[in-house]
């Protein structure tokens, strides 16, 4: 396990190669994480591959609502030789949520980036097939965002549709649930 100084050394090496890549480091409960600028993700992962972290185990999204930049993507790196793990974290703002895709170089990220796109709306530039993966294709909104309401998923039945209303409509024929942003 790299200790806190080891993490700083690694971050410093990374700064030497890519000056603007590192935004910060954090060491929490015995595990290190490097915060990076979104545009540098390709170079950072390539650098880490050279330093032994040759396996990308997980890509997942986080929503830091109400902080800005709000959306986060995290990459869990694994070194199978030194038995070591490291997290790479990046943050993007809600109004420009785009991150370069790592799928061309790390095939395992394919489905996982699609899931982050589906659940958080982070757009991965250069992804070969960026579509929704778990939610229906015509679904609006990104359900894992913190401001997406829980419960009350509308289900439209054909009989209600024929009558011109469904059960999400109140007596005044207005939607019971406020429309969420798409």
């Amino acid at each position, binding site marked *: 396990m790299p200790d806190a100084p080891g993490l700083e050394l690694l971050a410093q090496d990374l700064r030497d190669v890519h000056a603007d890549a590192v935004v910060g480091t954090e060491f*929490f*409960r015995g*595990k290190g*994480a490097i915060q990076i600028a979104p545009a540098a993700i390709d170079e950072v992962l390539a650098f880490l591959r050279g330093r032994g972290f040759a*396996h*990308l*185990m*997980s890509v*997942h*999204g*986080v*929503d830091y609502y109400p902080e800005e930049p709000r959306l986060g993507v*995290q990459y*869990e790196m694994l070194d*199978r030789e030194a*038995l070591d*793990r490291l*997290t790479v974290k990046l943050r993007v703002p809600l109004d420009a949520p785009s991150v370069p895709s790592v799928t061309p170089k*790390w*095939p*395992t990220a*394919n*489905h*996982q980036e699609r*899931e982050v796109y589906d659940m958080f709306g982070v757009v991965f530039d250069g992804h070969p097939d960026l579509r*929704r*993966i*778990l*939610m*229906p294709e015509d679904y609006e909104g990104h*359900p*894992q965002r*913190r401001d*997406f309401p*829980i419960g009350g998923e509308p289900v439209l039945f054909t009989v209600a549709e024929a009558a011109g209303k469904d059960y999400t409509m109140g007596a005044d024929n207005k939607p019971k649930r406020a429309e969420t942003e798409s």
Partner: protein
Amino acid sequence: MSTTDVTPYRSGEERIDVTQRVQTLPAPPDQELLTLNMGPHHPATHGVLRLLVTLEAEVVRDLKPLIGYVHTGIEKTAEDKSYWKAIPVVERMDYLAYYFNAMAFCGATETLLDVEVPRRAQYLRVIHMELNRIMSHLVWLGTSMLDLGAVTVWWYCFRERETILDLFEQSSGQRMHTRYFQVGGVMEDIPAGFEGNLRKFLKKMPDAIDQYLDLLNRNEIALRRLRDTCPLDEQTLLDLGVTGPLLRASGNPWDLRKAMPYSSYEDFEFKIPVGTRGDNYDRFAVRMQEMKESVKIIEQAIDGLPEGPFITEDRKVALPPRHELATSMEALLHHFKLVTEGFRVPPGEVYYPIEGPRGEYGMFIRSDGSSKPARVHMRDPSFVNLQATEPMVRDAYIADLITTLAMMDPVLGGVDR
């Protein structure tokens, strides 16, 4: 009288060479491609998995898995519950590996809280996780052999699975989705009689595994469908992030229980079975041997089960014992606080990976300091492993696609969450 006369129906046996198989067919030039929709309601897909298969005659040329049919928003639901009330929903992700889901979640929460789990609780967790691993592999073996047309094996597998579920019922009151693991330890100590029943099971299980192997290892149909079908090399598997028995079948002995031990796994002696060719037979054989190793681990854990508390003494995290409520005001307060609000967790982000029956179950939790997690995400091995289907079955027969899917053992509850 020669032997051929005695068994005329087996006269062709010597001519069957299971190592010789046609993997790629040179396609006739006028073959056209056919896109076939398999699933979502197809018995051989082990759940609601839909595959869009492009066929050239009987050969698979392309495949796209379409998932999301059992997406129930478990991660979102868990974010709306206090930590200890989220355990039951998290358990339902990969419904064959509920102890592992709970372990990943509790482990991540304990890391955030910096709570130490007593040794007895760690051993009890190991016993239940390994029983769960055997149970999961038994369901896999039974259903996948059903796909290959061997109905008998299923009955034998479910006979042993029943014994394991009875043990779960004895220790926690539930047969499935037991919610036995608690943040800081386990819910209850094992009851009297559990150890005896467990030892009876451990004595019987290795013979039972040999029995399954007797049914299959000399079965022409099973062997011809498994041997040398749909192999995939180690490097491709690593690039695709595949973990668990699928990776070990290709010869890579990566197992988190050995490599980066958690929950006292470093105390136990066991071997990691690996394959040599990475074909479907190796995937089958690795899991069969894994069950035997699990039996060994449980034996060591029950023999060396330490005395002591089964859950942490930290009253801010674990419920006080029932008898204290009648006499201690403080215990009553703690009880009330835990049941109504739950415990608060210091802010931070943790990724807690463990080795489950299908590979790496990695639980990511972000805490914002409140009593509910701000983000729960499971890196489910079925979800990641599913990406390897296409490279495995490309240019193989469609019959081998069924076999490969069975040997991949995806659990769609885990894929879709």
